[in-house]
């Protein structure tokens, strides 16, 4: 398996990858999808694990772009792969990939093309979309946008996993539930600490990496996770914590109430989704929900 995640890139590098692939194999493919409709936006963080699973045996590269777009370049016959990717994304985010997008992708790539053809088609498509679509303003940016640095993977190290396995059983001996607060904004951390720390022991983290380390160290009873962190998505953290600690009690605390965030939270089966601005009642109701669960 070789899926290279490009840290920082531009369209030029994207196109040169196409060329390089074309030299190595007869078939190459590229999928450039808009996974966004209206105000709904899917970020790379949520698509990453899905696409990685789907592409597990493909010698391919993933590019994460602004506007929730994903570009996947791979070597090999592309139609089957494309169908698999679209099927996975459609199933996971049914509201995000409309029929038109699918049709366009298939029409565009359902033929054998070489690197140069792809480059021309890519340009042609952009021009066509720019001229015809009401979304032209956004689409135009496909031509010159920078590809974003992808999120780090949410993973426990072996040491952290070992520590977590030791700390989870100790949770039931905690007299008061402890709370891990994860937010990159000092303001939000201070506010939540001020609200909770008189009654409950609190731990804080400002990045995904810090959150993972703190989670392994304390196995907190409750984790309040911001969604947009600088290194790892809060949803990816939630998925990780749920995977290794199914009894975890996770509450997403976010300024975003996009449908895609709610969908991701539901997928991860978290115990709460609190939208900023939050108030005392909203936060304490989640803590009370935890206490209720613990007592039953």
């Amino acid at each position: 398996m070789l899926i290279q995640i490009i840290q920082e890139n531009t369209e030029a590098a994207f196109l040169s990858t196409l060329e390089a692939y074309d030299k190595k194999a007869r078939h190459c493919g590229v999928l450039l999808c808009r996974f966004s409709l209206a105000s709904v936006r899917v970020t790379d963080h949520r698509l990453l694990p899905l696409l990685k699973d789907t592409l597990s045996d493909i010698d391919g590269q993933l590019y994460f772009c602004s506007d929730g777009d994903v570009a996947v370049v791979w070597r090999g016959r592309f139609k089957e792969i494309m169908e698999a990717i679209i099927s996975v994304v459609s199933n996971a985010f049914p509201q995000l990939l409309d029929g038109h997008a699918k049709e366009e992708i298939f029409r565009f790539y359902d033929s054998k093309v070489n690197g140069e053809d792809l480059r021309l088609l890519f340009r042609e498509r952009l021009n066509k979309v720019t001229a015809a679509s009401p979304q032209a303003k956004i689409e135009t940016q496909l031509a010159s946008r920078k590809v974003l640095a992808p999120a780090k993977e949410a993973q426990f190290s072996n040491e952290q996993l070992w520590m977590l396995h030791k700390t989870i059983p100790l949770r039931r001996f905690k007299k008061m539930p402890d709370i891990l607060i994860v937010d990159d904004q000092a303001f939000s951390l201070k506010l939540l600490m001020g609200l909770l720390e008189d009654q409950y022991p609190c731990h804080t983290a400002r990045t995904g990496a810090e959150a993972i380390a703190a989670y392994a160290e304390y196995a907190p009873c409750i984790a309040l996770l911001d969604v947009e962190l600088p290194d790892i998505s809060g949803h990816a953290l939630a998925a990780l914590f749920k995977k290794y600690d199914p009894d975890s009690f996770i509450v997403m605390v976010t300024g975003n109430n996009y449908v895609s965030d709610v969908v991701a939270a539901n997928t991860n089966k978290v115990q709460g989704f609190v939208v900023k601005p939050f108030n005392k009642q909203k936060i304490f109701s989640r803590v009370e929900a935890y206490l209720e669960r613990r007592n039953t």
Partner: protein
Amino acid sequence: MTDPVDLTNLHEMTDNDKVLEEALFQEFFIAADETIKTLEANCVEDANEPWRSAAHALKGVAYNLGAIALGDLCKKAQDGYAAGIAEKRELLQAIQAAYTESKLFLENVHH
């Protein structure tokens, strides 16, 4: 004329702890100064994501503080991350003005 910041929710969350509130105001100033600099730097072509991300960060802080007008502007900036430069500049100016007004208000709250 209504105040640029409605502190009702904040007072409830801090139990009227003036020291904590002052500390939160300072964090707000730091976050807003930093965000506005980031927005200024990214009010250019090909910088949609840093623009969106900065607007998002200040939006959450502003809303939780009670600076709703500022929060709404940040939300507009976040949702309109793909807007043109002229539109972004206009939004940035509005954000700066709303922030200045909020800051002035907060500097006099406990005095």
